[in-house]
């Protein structure tokens, strides 16, 4: 086992100040980018910058770069399993055939006084008749 521990390498205050400045600049960039319309690129940019910021926090503030490998593995495992969780949930949703409103349970309507709910099953008029 190597002798690399948080004690043999030590960051000074200077490193932390630089880390903070980098994080603040990235925050500024991500807020500024949100006011520009990149279409679907906005999501990608925002999440990419968030990931860069999170990595900086983990590596510098949480000292992961000087940490024993076992701790880095634990941290990465958390995110790995989160990734698997995300991936399968989205695969499930994206491969469902018909996530249309009329396939879902009817919402509890909160109607204003004087308005009656449309009869159940009436809309949408274009819904296909049951096939046998």
């Amino acid at each position, binding site marked *: *086992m190597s002798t690399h521990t*948080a004690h043999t390498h030590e960051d000074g205050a200077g490193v932390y100040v630089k880390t903070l400045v980098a994080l603040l600049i990235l925050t500024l960039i991500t807020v500024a980018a949100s006011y520009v319309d990149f279409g679907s690129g906005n999501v990608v940019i925002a999440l990419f910058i*968030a990931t860069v910021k*999170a990595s900086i926090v983990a590596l510098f503030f*949480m000292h992961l770069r000087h940490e024993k490998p076992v701790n880095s593995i634990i941290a990465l495992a958390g995110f790995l399993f989160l990734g698997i969780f995300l991936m399968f*949930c989205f695969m499930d949703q994206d491969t469902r055939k018909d996530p249309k409103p009329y396939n879902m349970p009817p919402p509890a309507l909160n109607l204003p006084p004087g308005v009656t*709910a449309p009869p159940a099953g009436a809309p949408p008029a274009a819904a296909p008749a049951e096939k046998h």
Partner: protein
Amino acid sequence: MSTSTIDLHDSHGPHGHGHADDPHHQHHFTNMQQQFDTSKIGMWLFLATEVLLFGGLFVGFGLMQNRYPQEFIEAHEHLQRPLGALNTVVLLISSFTMVMAVLSAKHSDKKKVVMYLILTILCACIFLGVKYFEYSHKFEEHLLPPRWYHAQPGDTVRDVAGNVSHGYGTFFAFYFMMTGLHGIHILVGIILLSWITVRAHRGEFSKAYYTPVDLIGLYWHLVDLIWIYLFPLYYLIK
């Protein structure tokens, strides 16, 4: 895992492994280094479960955004971006003061530890204050989970009877769940930070023993890290 035999504690001189001498040394650990490393592994395991705890909510948020894309875009316009950005900056600064507290503890600088911890608590309180302001604004406007959500003039997704889609309330259900759970973590953080501030003030921490400061620091950075994702997801994404 092998135990490391480096001597951290120069004050212990001939005793080598920092053994027996140190009042913080618990007998079931070979030496202080092993004790410290063990605590760290435990903390990182806890943090991994925290990531998964919030992860479930992030996945739910993602699925609902997929289902109600238009509603989520319109609903997110009700959040005040400048306040979210302000809170991001406040939390980043608090992470910096926290890491400085850990560094000062490593250097046995008691005064600075207490000062930086108090600054961290202050930032945490500012964060919660801003959140309180945001929450009360949302309560007033009835920007709440579906059951209590009141239609806003700008809501375009409606059914034939003119009722707004459930998507709007769903957005705020997730907003309150996730920022609420995060807020609880901040609150817990304040309690933990206060506890170690008192202990630091009593002079319990030095370069020979500062594990609690270090571990609570890790917790605090994780809370910051979660906010780093919450902020763009709720306030910025179109």
